[in-house]
Each structure stands twice: as C-alpha cells, then as structure tokens.
C-alpha cells in the first residue's frame, strides 16, 4: 500500500507549467517592473522552485506524514521531553482569526483580548512557579535559559560585579552549559553522586564569590527530587549568586512544590512539555521565564501590565511596557503567543485541582512503569522516581552485547517510540523513560511487557533492529563526514 512514487523529492515531481497556486490579476494600474526598481537589483532568472499542482502537493506531504511516529498515533515515552497528549480544543483556539490574524504592532486598544490572555498567562505562570515577575518572550526552553543568564549578567553588571562562573551538574541538559557559554559565562561542572543527586562535597568545593548562577534541574534528569535543595540554594545565595531552575521537569510538581519556594530566583517553562503544546516535529515551543522581584527590571520586554483605561476610568485596560533596565529583546515582537495560547487553554481546562492531578498521575504512571521494568532492566536510582526514571542497559551490554540503542530501535518494531537514550551521561547505556499522565495502565503494561520480551531476544536480532520500518539504521558517520544538506 505504500506510495513511494509520490514521496520522491518534491523537486523530482516538478513538471514545467504546473501550478499549485494562481494569484489574481493586478487590480491597480500596473507599471513595468523595470520602471519601478533598478535593473541592478532585479533577479536575472526565476526563483528555482518546483512546479507542481495542489493535488500533487497534498499527496506528497500526506504520504510523507505517514512515515512519522507521533503522539496522536503512538506511545512516545521520550524522557525529559514530556510527550503528553495534545488537546484538540487548543488547536481550534489558536486557529481563530481573533488570535491567528492579529498583527504584532496593532495599537493596544485593538488587541485587548490578546493582552488579557497574555496577562492571565503571566499571572498563572508566576503563581505556579512561586516567583514574582514574568516575561513571555523567549521562543523555546533553551532560549529561556539564555535569556535568564543574560538577565543575571545584567543584574550583576548593574552592581559592578563581573561574576564569570555558572555551575551546572553533570547530569543537566546539554543546553545548560551551552547557554552559559553563549551568555559569556564559564561553565563549571558539578558532580552528582551515586544516588543521582548533586554531590554536596563537590558542590561546596566549587562554590566561591565568582559564582553568578547555579543552574539546577529539579526534579533532575534521573527523575529524583534534589532533597538538599534548600541547602544548595542557601549556600549559593550566601555567596551572592543566583539559582536558576531548569523548568523542563515541571510536569512532576505542579501544585506540589514551587521553584520560588525552594530557592529559585529564575526559571523557564517549557509550555510545549508541561502544558501540552504539540512539538511540531521539533518546534515551535516557547520558553517564558519567571524571576524574583529584584530581577524583574531586567526582563526582556515588552511585558503586559494591567491598569485602567485612559478614557474610561474603572475599566480594565491592558498595555505593553518594557521594564526599566531591560536587557532588551531576545527576538522581534512579543513571543510565541500561539504556543502560549495553547498552554493558557490547557491551564484553564485543568484549574488548580486538575494541575495537581496531572502531576499526581504523571508520577504514579512513572513509578508504576518503574516497578514493572526494574526487575529485568536495572534502574540505578530506582527506589522511587518523580515523572521519569533512567534505566541502564550496561549489564545487558556487558553480558550479551545488547546496547541501549539496540533496545530503542527494537521498540520501534513493536509500535512504540523509543525512549531517550544515552542521556544523562552519568548513567551508562541510559534509557530514560517518561510515560506522562495521559497514558493508560494498559499502555504501560503493554510497553513493559514488550521491553521484557526484547531483553530476552537474541542479541543479533536486536543489533539489526528495527526490522519493520521503512528504513533500517542510517549511517550517521557517513552523513556527517560528507554532509549533503540539500539537493542541487
């Protein structure tokens, strides 16, 4: 049933003279282009685009879509990425012209509904994080990290301090040290211990007065809550440093504990994870940040403020303001409002009790799955977990040559997306599993049973996996050695 003819490259489907879109005739008196624009600026030939009809375009991309696994079609236990169900009502909301067809530079009085929604979002994110100020501008989680570090740099510079160090645990997301480097800081790695938490001895040995920020993920990437959080935060604060909370794992703690209450001065959110925005094959996401009061003045602008209507006292009016000592802008315009609107709908759907139920069930599902798999797939930090856990194939690798990658690839044959593998780097042959709250017990049972089957299979069968997919494992070394990134 596979249609390979129409999944050839779109360029190979091109036939001169075909059209997929025909524009109207010009309804104003038209002048010759060469009389309006200088010849030196004009292209000498037509743009090199394919010539295809609309049905051809639709058939091509519909067939391509069928080559993807997605949350709507498969279980996607991708640790750290929080691939939960993406509610359809949120898509309908974002497509309404009243949101989708609003221009960023419209006068404030013509977009009060948009600003009301965004103000509401700022308020809810502040409350959920326990922090005092919010900027919705960053366009992705890593963009939020960079934004927060630039806010921290501006804060220290304001006081004439030139702190250079950012501490990052060795099990942190790779974006943390990368963001630190991009923001002009030196990244210093802090070890984690056998229990998966920050090694307090190593932490204290690296703490000095040059510390700008300690970036911590909590719950961390092996799925445990850093129980020494208060001590960590107090020690950094005593040195004048700031605590940054990587909010990638907020799904575990909604309404349970708040970063602002456990010592964070700044945090980003990944609304596309925690609040169910679709991941879009890699994006878009958003990366709003919340900060404590003393950092509010450095936030990128504009932010939405609530006041009274200038012409109509007593009526609520929303306006855009740029904080006094703002670092400036991290992108043009306001932010990824379409993603924020989906997250807004998600939070309004749940309310306080519902958000707490999300975390309850995310943590329940993860612990249940952990209890099912730990006997045949060791989980080094596997007593209890938060919303995810990290298993290890190192014993299987040593004894039978079966790697984390082999297991990941074999899962594809059974109709499950692979978990995250080889991250965090602190666990050998890591397999990081996050079921999320939107999966059923039946799915988790089936997944665990499949994992059990796979680890019992012949090693050679696993090395060759996947067997049922359109392609088998790509030669990534060849791809990188001789990059071919476009068709000429």
């Amino acid at each position, binding site marked *: 049933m596979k249609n390979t003819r129409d999944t050839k490259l779109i360029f190979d489907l091109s036939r001169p003279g075909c059209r997929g879109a025909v524009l109207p005739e010009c*309804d104003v008196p038209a002048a010759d282009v060469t009389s309006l624009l200088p010849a030196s600026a004009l292209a000498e030939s037509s743009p090199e685009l*394919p010539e295809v009809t609309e049905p051809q375009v639709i058939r091509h991309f519909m067939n391509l879509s069928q080559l993807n696994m997605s949350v709507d079609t498969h279980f996607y236990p991708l640790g750290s990425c929080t691939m939960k169900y993406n509610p359809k009502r949120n898509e309908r909301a974002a497509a309404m012209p009243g949101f989708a067809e609003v221009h960023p530079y419209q006068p404030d009085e013509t977009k009060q509904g948009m600003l009301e929604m965004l103000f509401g979002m700022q308020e809810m994110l502040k409350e959920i994080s326990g922090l005092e100020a919010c900027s919705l501008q960053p366009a992705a989680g890593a963009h939020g990290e960079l934004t927060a570090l630039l806010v921290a740099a501006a804060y220290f510079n304001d006081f004439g301090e030139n702190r250079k160090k950012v501490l990052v645990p060795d099990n942190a997301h790779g974006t943390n040290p990368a963001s630190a480097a991009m923001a002009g800081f030196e990244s210093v790695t802090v070890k984690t211990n056998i229990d998966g938490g920050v090694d307090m001895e190593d932490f204290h040995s690296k703490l000095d007065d040059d510390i700008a920020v300690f970036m911590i993920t909590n719950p961390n990437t092996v799925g445990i809550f850093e129980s020494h959080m208060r001590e960590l935060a107090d020690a950094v604060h005593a040195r004048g440093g700031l605590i940054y909370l990587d909010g990638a794992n907020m799904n575990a703690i909604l309404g349970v504990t708040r970063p602002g209450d456990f010592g964070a001065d700044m945090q980003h959110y990944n609304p596309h994870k925690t609040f169910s925005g679709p991941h879009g094959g890699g994006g878009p996401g958003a990366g709003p940040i919340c900060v404590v009061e003393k950092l509010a003045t450095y936030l990128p602008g504009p932010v939405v403020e609530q006041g009274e209507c200038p012409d109509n006292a007593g009526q609520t009016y929303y306006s855009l303001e740029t904080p006094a000592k703002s670092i400036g802008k991290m992108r043009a315009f306001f932010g990824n409002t379409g993603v924020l609107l989906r997250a807004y709908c998600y939070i309004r759907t749940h309310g306080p009790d519902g958000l707490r139920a999300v975390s309850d069930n995310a943590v329940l599902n993860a612990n249940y799955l952990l209890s099912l798999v730990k006997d045949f797939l060791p989980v080094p930090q596997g007593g209890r977990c938060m919303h995810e856990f990290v298993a290890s194939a190192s014993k299987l690798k040593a004894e039978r040559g079966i790697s984390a990658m082999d297991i990941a690839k074999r899962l594809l044959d059974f109709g499950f997306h692979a978990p995250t593998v080889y991250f965090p780097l602190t666990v050998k042959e890591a397999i990081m599993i996050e079921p999320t709250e939107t999966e059923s017990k039946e799915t988790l049972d089936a997944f665990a049973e499949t994992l059990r089957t796979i680890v019992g299979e012949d090693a050679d069968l696993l090395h060759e996996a996947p067997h049922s997919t359109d392609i088998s494992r790509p030669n990534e070394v060849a791809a990188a050695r001789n990059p071919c990134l476009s068709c000429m």
Partner: protein
Amino acid sequence: MPYLYNTSDDQAAMLAAIGAQSIEELFQSIPSELRLDRPLNIPPAMGELELEQHIRGLAAKNLNGSNAVTFLGGGSYDHFVPAAVDAVASRSEFYTSYTPYQAEVSQGNLQAMFEYQSLITRLTGLDVSNCSLYDGGSSAAEAVLMAADITRRKGRVVVAASVHPEYRQTISTYVANLGIEVVTVGAENGTVDIAELTSVVNDETSCVVLQHPNFFGCLEDAETVAQVAHDAGALMIGVFDPISLGLLKRPGDWGADIAVAEGQSLGTPMSYGGPVLGILACKEKLIRRLPGRVVGTTTDRRGNPCYTLTMQTREQHIRREKSTSNVCSNQALFALRATVYLSLVGPEGLKSVANLCLQKSRYLADKLDSTSRFELVFNSPTFKEFVVRDKENAVEDLVADAAKEGYLAGIPLGGWYPNLADCMLVCVTEKRTRAQLDALVEVLQTGAAKASADELIQAGI
C-alpha cells in the same frame, strides 16, 4: 479530567504494584517544608464548551484579519496562505511528533526538512541552510555570533540603522555579555550612509548587517555594502524578505555570506508575532559553525537512501560547554509550512505575489503622496513598504482614528526613530484590493470612509 485515563481502581492497582499506600507517598522525597500547603491560586477548571466561549470572547476583542484591513508590516505580513498549507500542517503525524531523533520512524519529517533546506538554499543562492531558528531577529543575532567566531574578531559588529529596530536590539542583547561592540550606521535618507559605513568598518569588524529591502521598505545598494565588508575581511550578513525574491536578486548573488530572514511570509499567519520562522543560510565554508539542526542524506544498513539529523557535534548534545549552538526546539512546523507554500506557489506564483505587492504598494504610495496632507519621505525605490509623513504631525491620532473604522493604517516610527516621529510605515500585500487602498486614503484624509473595513470585508471587496 478529560486527558487522564486512570480510574480510581487503576490507581489502586498501580499503587499496589508499586508498594505504596497513596499517591502522596510518591512525593515523599520532597521535604515537607518545601511543599505548597494550599491549592494553586489560579482560576477554576473549565469544560471544553466554557473554554471555547471564553476564548471566543477574548478573540472578539481583537481587530484581526476577519474584521479589519491591515497595512501593517515591519517584519510581520498579512500575506495569503493557501488552504493546502493548513491541510498539511494540521496533519497530526507532523504536528504531534518530536524532533526526529529516531530516523527510522521520522522519514516524513526528515525529508520535509531536507526539502525545506533545499528550497532555502535555492531561494537565497547560498550553499547550505539549517532547518529553522526561532525568528528573523534571533536568526540575525545567531548570524552575528557565527561571524564573530569564524573571523575570530571579537571587536565590532556594524549594523545599518535601516535594519529592523527589534533585530538590532536582539543582536545587542545577544552580544551584551561577550564584549562585542555594536556600531550602528545612520540611514538618514532611508538607506545606509555608505561613507559613514566605510569609515567605521575596520579590521576588527567581524560582520556588517544589512537589510535589503530594509525596514523602511527601501532597496539598499547591497552589492556596494557587501564589497565594503569584504574589503575589510568582514562577513556580510544580509537580512532579506523571502517574498521579495520573486523579483529581486538573491542574497548570495549580491554578496551575502550569511542570509537571515523572517519566514512568516511563507505560509504562516501573523499570530501576533509568533510562532514564526527564522531562516538562516550560509556559504559552504561556514558550515561547521551553522547553528541549529540540519538534516542530511545518507544510506541505511540495507544500502537504501535515507535522511538523518547530522553534524550534531556542534550542538549541545555532545560538546556541552564547547557547543556552538544551544538550539533545541526550533520552528520545524513552520519550516514545513514554508516548504508547502513554496511548493504551491512555485516560481511563477512567487513572482506574482512579489509583483502584486510592488504594484499595489506603489499605487497607494503615489496616491498618498498626491494628497495635501501626506508626502513620501524617502526617494529610494521601495518594494512593498514605504514611509509616509503626516504634515500635520498627528500620526498616533491618525492610526487610532483609522483603527476605529477597522483600518490598521501604519506603524508610527517615532518610538524607534525620533526624527521620524511624524511618519509611519505602510505596507501593502497582495491581499489588499484596490477598494481597500482607496478606502484607506479616504479614511486617513477625512477620519472616516464610506464603508468601514468590516463592510468591505463582508462585501468581499
């Protein structure tokens, strides 16, 4: 809750398997003094119907494409989006999938990204493209970081004042803690002052950033600016409007080493400025410093051709603190929209869109210029935007009054350019009809039109 499967029986069975008495017990590792001892103070839950009514109510408070006519541009454009773009992008196998780490089950996304990269390199006349960044502004900032690293010049970045003000702000924010100086070169006559530019570009300059057509809609002498940059050993970063390439020379043809753009014009709605699409393409020699993800071709174990993410050594996965990019989530779905859009319009369609923008904006510019109240400010040729001066110096009031009639007339420029406080930037896309153009002139002159924007829209003119 509508998205949670587990019944209380399920929960009890799961807790029993775990060996826990309650869900609360699973949170034991969080010290009690760090717990929130009350419900979150956010509004109560809403059902789907209530939510829909609430959102419709908020949407109704916004002027938008269904009840207003927009002449606003400045980097976000009201171009036509064919329905087929929405049909493809709303396929949930595309929009609910993740970054294609597992190539075997992501060939659809990977091939679409490869096609996007191919289209962008052809469109720009450059060798390689990544598969998207956040937006035009952050892409410009990433390009500046690339240039500083490649040239090993950490001294100076030279930016034309005619580059989008928010792109310039973004560049400044990105380099603020890196010790790089941003020098802005004036554009008093609507295009960058080339004499001034030549005087500030020196052997510590990593790059020159130019937008063409620029923020004022004017065409720059891009080739000369590129020559100035190259003569000093600096890289040329060109900010372009993808739609303009239906008529204009490609950035690669006029000398850009790195080309960046806001790709929203290519099939993505304005959405109040986001999410949109950051385009970045560059010459092959800069490939190892290309930020973000890229897709390449290879073969699988059976020897069949396939696609995979590649060159990830530049990224945060492997080198961590030595990585040259922290991009993780990008704008893949909007790269897909651009791919579908460009496939649909093809070479003739893109030329048509560009030509309609050009002809209609000239028509409106000439009409406003011929009134007693308005005059065009700059002499340079323009593409789809132009700057018009209100001789009565009441731009903010004009814009507010026109909005009451449903016409979003223009972007006042005083906030970014104090010397243009009596001016506004007006944009005309292929979607504007002659009736709408004529009505705007009437509204701006008299404060009212025979027909409000909503009436024109309802009448289909």
